[in-house]
């Protein structure tokens, strides 16, 4: 009551202070305030700060941040070492997005049945997503470890399994060979994120009207045709979400690469996220690392916008 009475100044119609005069209109703003503060402090401020630092030569330690214009950006586009990480980044992003989408769609189909087992499996497939990328990387490092001594079984779990199956010719230094390292990371990513993206498809499947399938059954439509002409088109919103999330996440990937390969062997799994970390934290070129982050953000933004324009159009067509 006191608070209400304290606002006595006659402000112009429609001004912020007029709005807060009315308690009912004031409360919604108050309730979004914590989220707004968190978003500003932990997202807006770091982003703005990173953008500002990208125009400086700051090393993370010096008290003075010298403004150097676009020099960091010019350096990024003319540095062949940095430029060489983009093919790796796009290779990973494209394959990761396609593979996870493909398998998660079929996993969602398999889970879209009501039985006690599927209820348990839905939880089991979701569990990997709650694990930290660093922990997952550590575990899979042991699994992919190379062969040291066959006779004493001193080798990683995967090679050990192949040996027990008599498939010694397939044993590899999985994370230490350029032909297999990136594909191993893709496999781990598939294992970790499959359940999460399947859940998005699954949620969308639950919302497809049952009468569509009943009508199809009456018309004698076969299972594959129902999948092709009912399920798949109706999953357009889930596809949009999954493709968008996976594209963004894959282009920004850091934790799995860092914990599994650290960009090796010989830079064959080095992606832009690792290059940014190396420049900003290891080499202490915070300004330069920030410029790379801004470039990555712009790339992700453009790709996401284009992807969404296409997918939204597809949703409408569906």
């Amino acid at each position, binding site marked *: 009551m006191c608070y209400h009475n304290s606002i006595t100044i006659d402000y112009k119609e429609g001004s912020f202070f007029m709005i807060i005069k009315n*308690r009912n209109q004031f*409360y919604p703003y*108050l*309730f979004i*305030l*914590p989220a707004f*503060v*968190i978003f500003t*402090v932990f997202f807006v401020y770091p982003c703005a700060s990173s953008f500002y630092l990208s125009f400086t030569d700051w*090393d*993370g*330690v*010096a*008290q003075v941040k010298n403004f150097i214009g676009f020099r960091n950006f010019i350096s990024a586009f003319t540095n062949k*070492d940095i430029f060489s990480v983009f093919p790796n980044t796009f290779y990973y992003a494209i394959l990761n997005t396609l593979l996870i989408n493909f398998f998660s769609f079929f996993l969602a189909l398999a889970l879209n049945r009501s039985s006690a087992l599927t209820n348990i499996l839905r939880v089991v497939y979701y569990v990997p997503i709650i694990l930290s990328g660093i922990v997952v990387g550590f575990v899979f490092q042991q699994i992919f*470890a*190379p*062969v*040291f001594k066959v006779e004493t079984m*001193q080798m990683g779990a995967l090679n050990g399994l192949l040996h027990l199956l008599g498939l010694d010719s397939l044993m590899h*230094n999985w*994370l*230490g*060979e*350029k032909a297999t390292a990136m594909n191993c990371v893709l496999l781990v990513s598939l294992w970790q994120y499959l359940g999460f993206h399947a859940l998005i498809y699954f949620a969308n499947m639950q919302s497809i009207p049952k009468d569509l399938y009943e009508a199809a059954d009456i018309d004698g439509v076969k299972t594959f045709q129902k999948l092709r002409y009912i399920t798949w088109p109706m999953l357009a919103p889930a596809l949009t979400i999954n493709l968008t999330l996976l594209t963004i996440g894959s282009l920004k990937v850091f934790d799995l690469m860092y914990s599994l390969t650290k*960009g*090796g*062997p*010989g*830079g*064959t799994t*080095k992606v832009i996220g690792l290059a940014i970390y*190396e420049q900003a*934290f*290891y*080499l*202490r070129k915070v300004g330069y690392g920030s410029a790379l982050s801004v470039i990555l953000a712009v790339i992700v933004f453009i790709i996401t916008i284009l992807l969404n324009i296409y997918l939204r159009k597809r949703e409408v067509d569906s």
Partner: protein
Amino acid sequence: MKKMLAMTVVLAVCFSILAGCGKVENKGNETTVKSNDQTESQKVETTAVKQEPLTIKLLHFWPGNGKDAVEKTIVADFMKKYDYITVEIENPSVASYYEVLTTKLNTGDMPDVFSGHPGGTMFTYYDGGVTMDLSDRSWVNDLTDGAKRDVTYGGKIQMLPVNSPTMAMAYNKKMFSDLGVKVPDSYAEFIDICDKAKAKGILPMAMGGDGWLYALSIMSVPYIYAKDIDFDQKVNEGKAVFNNDDWKKIFTRVLVEWQQKGYIPKDHLKMDRTTTMLNEFVSGKAAMFFMGAWDVAGIRAAADKDFQLGLFPFPSDNAGGSCVLAATGEGLAAYAKTEQKDAALKFIDYFATKEVDKLFCEAVGSMSVIKGVVANIDPAFNDLIPYIEKNPTHGFINSGWPAEVNAMMGEEIEKVIIGDKTVDQILQTMQDKWREIIDSKKK
């Protein structure tokens, strides 16, 4: 009433979020204002006369025995001696240490005294004016010449060097005896040992993970730095090149020849050095193991009591040229803008006393860099003393390299191992990078 309660909760959440930020910021401002308002001499005088209780913060990265020695003995005794000084300790892991240090610097929470690795890692902090000039401290004259050189930057002593770990080749004395070989005095003798071990089904060298860095480091002393202690400086000045025949020789031996001849394990990059390889060595399945002083405790813990550990420095091509890698491993620095300059310096001076340094070196198993201090460490290190007395020593391979060259080495090495590049090509790449950095600094 309910609405009031809800509003109060919301506001409380907002303020609690902002509270942390405000605290750090205020602290930062306070530091700046005070250090400007009060001259250093005034502060020292005030402390000496009044001896009001005060607190200094110590940030260090030592784990295990080093942590115990610093925290339970050195700091505890220091606080007894100076009963008005309280030392608050923070001990992040060495892996994240510099991120923590940089974060503290940028949030106004800088410790008054902090540990660091003299060499390239600290150059940014020296350049940024973070470390206090310690040139006038009395202990400077007690430092060995090498240690003094390692902590001097811009003509100033930037840190107190506290120990001198070594890297060497560990060997199984009994196995050498059984093979009928002795400690090698030349590279030809070293290869002879490898061949004899291999012929008996013994792995000559247990090398894994970053063991290649240990090998290159140990070999760089007799092949590069014993010939020219100022080699890095000469590359900086354009008077020497990195891609010379000597570097090519040691890189080729470690990355190509040893692998081809089966002296080191296949796929060694993905073998864990301190578990898989160390166990091979102590269990008598490998003859030699590239190690640092910090590995000795692990070797002793994993080996049987009757395991006979020996150490030798890497031999040169010619007999009698074995040189020891003895680096200035770690040091203590004082924050240049500390409000507690007197107490911070007192702590560093206390750490520099011969008794304290000896105690610390014995805890971490390192030699001392203070003249006249002989630490009683693992007897295996005695094997190295004759070489240290006879031939020059040098620190880690990359202590004087630009950070960018250091950072790219691992990736370039892997390129040789997976067959993407030759040794010549990676040395040329590293030389080009070094030149590029020097040229950019001139601009």
